[in-house]
């Protein structure tokens, strides 16, 4: 059953050096409140798994600015000049992933699969040191599952059972990451006493461990 906590209390579920998934796409569907609290602590050396490193002023981008990210497994860093600077200065390790491959690797971990086969990245730098598997005379890269110790997720709507639903283009990685992390913390904008309609639920509450009533709307 999901537990309701504050963003400050959520910081107790993190340890130095952990792998953390954070939902959101650029400036949309971003959790903020737990990150604001993490910035007040000495927590550090995280491996970040996310679509991108946002901007220096927004969500997970602020963790990069504060040097709390040791390694970023993302599809894009170009919108955060501080990630680019740290990468060029070798202050942060960046493992760039094709975005669809990143999503499927997260899904694989959450769905109990041993990996996925994708044609994306063949004949490019992405294929380096990866196994190529031929199925029906077509080549694919074997991409392994990606899981996390903790996930920080944004949702527009939630109920007391932990069920989640989303407005607009906020679904992005927020829908898949809850399956792939040991501890899942959700920042929800609206939490209803009444159960959400089973027809409209996108993320089932059984994937969610902790719920926070969001202070802002996730866009800063």
């Amino acid at each position, binding site marked *: 059953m999901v537990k309701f906590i504050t963003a400050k209390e959520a910081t107790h579920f993190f340890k130095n050096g952990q792998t953390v998934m954070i939902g959101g796409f650029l400036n949309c569907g971003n959790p903020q409140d737990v990150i604001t609290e993490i910035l007040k602590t000495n927590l550090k050396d995280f491996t970040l798994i996310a*679509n*991108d490193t946002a901007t220096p002023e927004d969500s997970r981008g602020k963790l990069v600015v504060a040097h709390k990210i040791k390694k970023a497994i*993302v599809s894009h860093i*170009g919108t955060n000049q501080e990630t680019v600077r740290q990468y060029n200065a070798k202050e942060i390790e960046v493992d760039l992933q094709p975005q669809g491959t990143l999503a499927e690797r997260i899904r694989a971990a959450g769905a109990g699969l041993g990996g996925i086969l994708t044609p994306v990245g063949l004949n490019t730098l992405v294929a380096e040191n990866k196994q190529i598997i031929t199925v029906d005379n077509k080549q694919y890269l074997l991409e392994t599952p990606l899981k996390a110790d903790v996930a920080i997720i944004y949702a527009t709507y939630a109920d007391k059972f932990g069920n989640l639903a989303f407005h607009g283009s906020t679904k992005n990685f927020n829908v*898949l990451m809850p399956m792939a992390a040991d501890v899942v913390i959700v920042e929800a904008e609206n939490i209803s006493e009444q159960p959400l309609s089973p027809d409209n639920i996108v993320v089932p509450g059984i994937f969610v461990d902790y719920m926070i009533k969001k202070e802002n709307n996730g866009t800063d």
Partner: protein
Amino acid sequence: MELTKEQAQEIIARRVAREFKDGDVVTLGIGLPTKAISYVSDDVHIIVQSENGVLGVGAYQDDSNRDPHIINAGGFGVTINDGGCFVDSLTAFAMMRGGHIDLTVLGALQVDAEGNLANWCIPGKFTPGMGGAMDLVVGTKRLIIAMEHTAKGAPKILQKCTLPLTVAHKVNTIITEKAVFEIINNKLILREISPYSSLDEIRQTTDAEFIVDLTA
């Protein structure tokens, strides 16, 4: 004839717009490829997909319809057209990788005579990441590269790309302010010469062998 950057981009965008067919599901790169939408003729209705999970991307938002929860892949506030829907990243990429996109238009750093594309990385200088580009180009039914013919005078159409590839052997068409090329069976074929250019100028600014066949 010397064109300004703006003039070159408008010529390219107008020419790209003629490639859209009624009912096409299309994905457009940020910047120049997106400008092509402005020039699509009124009787052609396309469905624009955005990798962040919008199918049926409409006009940009204005003060009458601000909603921070609806963006395109460039992070700009957009609207959604009737019949459109929002999906998660898995579904957005299934559309792209799974062969459900009719036409993709992207920019390029380099493109070569074998249909290889490089548009995500200049080692040591520029590494923003590939984002969704690699997935997109693998699955699309047709791939058009829309770009200025040269970068600071240097050719961008080469015999062989020197930068890290985004994808191998996938580019179908190259549209620049000077020319339209097709790539068929690893051969580069000049199909159109822009009224603002000439065969001589195209030869001088293209670092690849090509066949001239303006009959198609």
